[in-house]
């Protein structure tokens, strides 16, 4: 595991965010979803991840999986209504990727969004986690 985890990472400005500490990268109507560095720092080392199955219809704000660290378990919330198109099997095999590269290789799943959700931009999310 990297030691950089404890260093606060800046939140990339090209992503959108939820108050549940997830990020969304939208390309056309396909969105890639992950959790933020802030979330991974709060969780500690993630050792198990349960993701929704491909093809599942998920509902914004509802639980669709979980992230388990040595100390705790957190629900993964769907950031929007839609259908799961793909999951990142690399993080299922090696959940530490979520800690080491939360905004990159540690992405969780991709979905087709059916209703545009209310999301935060990086500045608004920065302000939220500063509180």
């Amino acid at each position, binding site marked *: *595991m*990297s*030691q*950089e*985890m*404890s*260093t606060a990472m800046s939140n990339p400005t090209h992503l959108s965010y939820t108050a549940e500490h997830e990020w969304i990268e939208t390309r056309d109507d396909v969105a890639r979803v992950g959790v933020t560095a802030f979330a991974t*720092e709060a969780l*500690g*080392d993630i*050792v*198990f991840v*349960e993701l929704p199955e491909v093809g599942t219809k998920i509902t914004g704000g509802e639980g669709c999986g*979980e992230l*388990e660290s*040595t*100390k705790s*378990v957190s629900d993964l919330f769907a950031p929007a209504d839609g259908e799961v198109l793909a999951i990142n099997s690399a993080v299922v095999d090696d959940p530490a990727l979520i*800690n080491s590269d939360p905004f990159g290789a540690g992405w969780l799943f991709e979905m087709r969004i059916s209703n545009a959700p209310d999301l935060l931009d990086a500045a608004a999310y920065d302000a939220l986690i500063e509180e």
Partner: protein
Amino acid sequence: MTSPVPTPLHAIHQSLGASFTDFAGWSMPVRYGSETAEHHAVRTTAGLFDLSHMGEIEVTGPEAGRALDRALVGRPSKIGLGRARYSMICAEDGGIIDDLVVYRLEEERYLVVANASNVVVVAPALVERADGYDAVVHDASAQWALIAVQGPVSAQIVAAVTDLDVPTLRYYAIDAGKVAGIDVLLARTGYTGEDGFEVYCAPASAADAWDAITEAGEPHGLIPAGLACRDTLRLEAGMPLYGHELSRETTPFEAGLGRVVSFDKPDGFVGDAALAARREEGLRSTLVGLVATGRRSPRAGYAVVDPATGDEIGIVTSGSPSPTLGRPIAMAYVRPELAVSGTKVQVVVRGSHEDAEIVDLPFYSKK
């Protein structure tokens, strides 16, 4: 709520980038980087812990030993000079008020180390129970900082900074001496399942002691380690944690620690009648280890069920993915007839029944 109290090492933890947690009224480092890396460091090299939140109660006087014999379940009057014992303080009904390490520093001077969350209860209880004995109880928690060096290379590290003879300091022994020129009590004790040392010193000297141990330890692979890995280390070592395996609702017998109870004491002890009755009537539940088959971890409060009937047969008290074993482990109280190694059970993990097996404690023993 009052804000959590910083330890004398708080500024060092901040400079190391620690994440903090509020623990028993103290602001404590929970991890510095990866708690998994910190855990592995303690198992393979060494970790450095700030345990200044622990409570230190001094009991002195000609009858200090007799007073402690009356107050605790063990027999501190029989502890050899410079040695330590694991003990407990129980209520009249036999329930555990706290688990303790008792050091005999001098013929008439003991140091009783209590959990941070319980010292406000333990200190007054000791005062009350010492009444009538020629002994003085003093809560000296504010006068002691505590730093632990734990891991297989900890003896080499400590030997480099102390004037005491480390090889002759036995496990569960303590001696007064110097670390980096600072007056300390150096104990060979810990809560990780590894060889290790605990350094008691004045709060004003704690930062210097920490820095000296860090400097001596870094070439050996020592890294700072937080409370998160302390919990997984003690769990792997099968050591109970107050508030989880131990509580006012359990006695030492359920916890598998009946050996610490000494009924053969001239003045008896607080809780002896209830504990003798509990010993006679047999256990209602007993503490076991669980290893889960899948990857989801049992956690404190989850039900243990019979796989055939789904009937609840016990409850998990602590659980976590084990960094050393690579599988989830847990401790649980189950009905005594089920406390047989190899018994298949299930744990209800957030609605799903996950397979697990009862195993002998500890999960991990040092080679």
